[in-house]
């Protein structure tokens, strides 16, 4: 069982009221400032749909969106493809690390950084691959060791709970809760 198609969402504690236009400008600024190696392509406004991607930064390897799916606003890092070979644990670790970096980038952004804060102890993991990782307990059992390893590293000794969303049609979605509060820097230092 392996997939690199992993999405990671951090929920907002502050900044839910930032206008979509502001995110649109911010992501466009990122494209403009981008010096590689990531390929950032375009920004799309989907603020007219409910509980979807509000503002989407489209890249080649990954997308980043201000995301309202599940009714809670956050930043969703969606790893679409990778040049790196590796097993599931390596892909998961890479996705979580990149998501933390994205969270930090937003929190330190000159335009929105001081208006936004993310919950560090709550993260949503979505395995965006119904073929390799169907939404079932068996899948969770199969990846449990890898999950424990990556989340153990991310949160150190803090107690972590994982629950699978039980929706037969949805992708495998895991809600992760950890004790304590965690800044992006702390999480990245752990990784």
């Amino acid at each position, binding site marked *: 069982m392996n997939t690199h198609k992993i999405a990671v969402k951090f929920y907002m504690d502050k900044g839910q009221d930032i206008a979509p236009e502001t995110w649109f400008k911010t992501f466009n600024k990122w494209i403009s400032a981008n010096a590689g190696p990531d390929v950032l392509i*375009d920004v799309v406004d989907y603020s007219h749909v409910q509980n979807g991607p509000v503002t989407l930064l489209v890249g080649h390897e990954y997308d980043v969106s201000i995301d309202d*799916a599940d009714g809670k606003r956050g930043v969703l890092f969606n790893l679409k493809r990778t040049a790196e070979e590796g097993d599931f644990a390596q892909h998961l670790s890479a996705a979580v690390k990149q998501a933390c970096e994205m969270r930090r980038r937003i929190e330190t952004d000159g335009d929105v950084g001081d208006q936004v804060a993310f919950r560090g102890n709550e993260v949503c993991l979505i395995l965006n691959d119904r073929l390799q990782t169907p939404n079932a307990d068996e899948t969770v059992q199969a990846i449990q060791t890898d999950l424990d390893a990556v989340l153990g590293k991310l949160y150190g000794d803090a107690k972590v709970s994982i629950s699978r969303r039980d929706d037969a*049609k949805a992708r495998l979605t895991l809600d992760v809760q950890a004790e304590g509060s965690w800044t992006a820097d702390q999480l990245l230092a752990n990784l």
Partner: protein
Amino acid sequence: MSVQSWKEKLDGQLPEELSAEVDTFETQIEQKKSGQIDDRVFAETRLRRGVYGQRYDNGQRFDGQITKRLEYPCGELFKGPDTYWDAPGMQRIKIPFGGLTADQLDVMADLAEEYADDILHITTRQGVQLHFVHIEDTPDLMRRLASVGITTREACGNSIRNVTACPISGVCRTETFDVTPYSKALATFMLGHPDCQDFGRKVKIAFSGCAHEACGLTSMHDLGFIAKTQDGKVGFEFYVGGGLGAVPHQAKLFDDFLPAEEILPMSQAVCRVFARLGEKANRARARVKFLLAKLGLEEFQRLVQEERAILPHDDAWTAYLDDLDSYKEEPLKIAAPLNGAAKPEGYDAWASTNVYKQRQEGYVAVTVSLPLGDITSDQTRALADLSRKYVKDTIRTTVEQNIILRWVSESDLTQLYGELVALGLGEPGAGTIVDVTTCPGTDTCKLGISSSRGLAGELRSQLAAQSMSLDESIKNFRIKISGCFNSCGQHHVADLGFYGNSRRVNGYTVPHFQVVLGGQWTENAGSYGLAMGAVPSKNIPAVIECITGNYVANRQGDESFQDYVKRIGKKEVKNMLTDLTSVPAHEEDASYYVDWGESREFTVGDMGKGECAGEVVTLVEFELSGCETESFEAQLQLDEGNYEAAYKGALSAMLHAAKALIKTQWLDVPDAADEIVKEFRERFCDTELFYNQFAGPKFANYLFRVHEEEISEYTQDVAHRVIEEGQLFIEQAYACYGRMNVVNA
């Protein structure tokens, strides 16, 4: 734990033909990656699978100040001329007559999540588009669609596009009869039909149940059918040569009563004439409408009827007519009135615009309004569940970019409304001035000039806020917006239409929209609007306020907007708009230099070469490319030790190459191998057309020998020999075709 591919997982579950088509396309992708297919041929190949390019796929993007390179990791690998391999693209999905099932919605929702951006976009021709899709994901995407009976074949390219039909056909109170089975039959018949593979450009077909409503918009289609009965017989008024684009043409009446059993063969005959005589080189004039204008209706009719008379009979022309009852829909729930049920807040406003009383007592068709035609994956799955709960599989997309649930029992309306509201799908205003239609424009289209979606979003917000106070006479106006003159947003048939352009002002390029007024939506897009002049994008909301305000104040009696525009004339309208055409200096108001929904300063530099017109690839080139793929697949069979399959695949590739050449002289060449060989011998070998300058008939003889030889055992050596010979034969076919073109030129 599952580790197989989608191909393995769905093995045996897909219709054989669809499965083979996707396998072939996957092979072609591999061939392109290894440099075996020309960029142009591959572009047309993918377009005919609905795999479209998207803005910025030429590797550059204007960031508001300078144009920057997008360094896609594919290097110099392209999927078409100037189209980078790794650039995300659009996948168009054909939905004939807009008919969908709940399972199909579920699958498309999953695909949008896994391969696109979590959004399904309903198009102005009842199709679905997924954006930001990587080409290498498309074979699996297609397999998953095929698992629920959907093909993307010929969703783009020079082919028969999605066949559209009135979305309430079958439940409509005023229709002559349900056109659904006829539209489905024609779509099925034309899909991949040999007579539809050599067009200069696309052909669009639509069906309407009645003449006076907007229905299928037949007047703006290449082929249009309006239901009609005559002396107890079922048939259609048959129209040809309509179309929008930069030069809109109203369709002409070809036959005021075409019996139902004639719609397939007559369409086939039109396609043959179009393929034979239609423009190929000049893309701007390669539609049926231009051929019709060139020949005149009478001559066009004569040629088509002549063609019809010599068409080889096909049982498929009428086979579906014996089975019309199978197309009938059934409700899930018993019809019951909405007696005294408590109505939630907002219900009445929603019901007044989004609920259509069916001709079947106790049932209604509910329009689910989709802002800008967009719906998320979660919403789509939830809508599929609502369909299962209330109406079975009676779902239709609409050309106004909404979704209709048919056969809702009236007694379920309040509950359904509540559930739609909870999903963010309960907006009122379907079919009103708020329900703005738009093409993707500069958001994703390579041809987009101005931001049609940005403008549409702005107008939708502004008009929704005013909807309660709008005058009744303008509430049902249609607003339609295209990002450029190509009319994908169907601006010509709106009361208030706009298409994107630009103007140089004060040394800057400024986004504008051309104002097109007075188009007629009803009577199947009965007349087109008049262009009134270009106005800066940022002034378009003011244009609407000015025009509608003037109409409300000055209309005479029950004068329609179309009549009002005609009465006051272009000059008066232009006078009204004069003040709105000016652009303030950049330092005075820089917002005019940034389009709606954008943050970057405006440019037209992001435009690329459009793919709407497909690539100019001749039928022979296209078919020979397919032979190469077949030969390549034979090689794969050889590698896997399937010698018989390899041998037969190579022979089939040779036969198809021979057939492609014969088609240059005789379109109706049969499929039988003996016939192909006989015709090829007479037309290309006996005439020495196929002869090689040095080797004479050597390569032709490969075909003759392989065709005649009897194999007692398919060994590796035998299969290998035939594959080699087959490749040489195909190469010689290319050379022969090249010589023929030189001679013909």
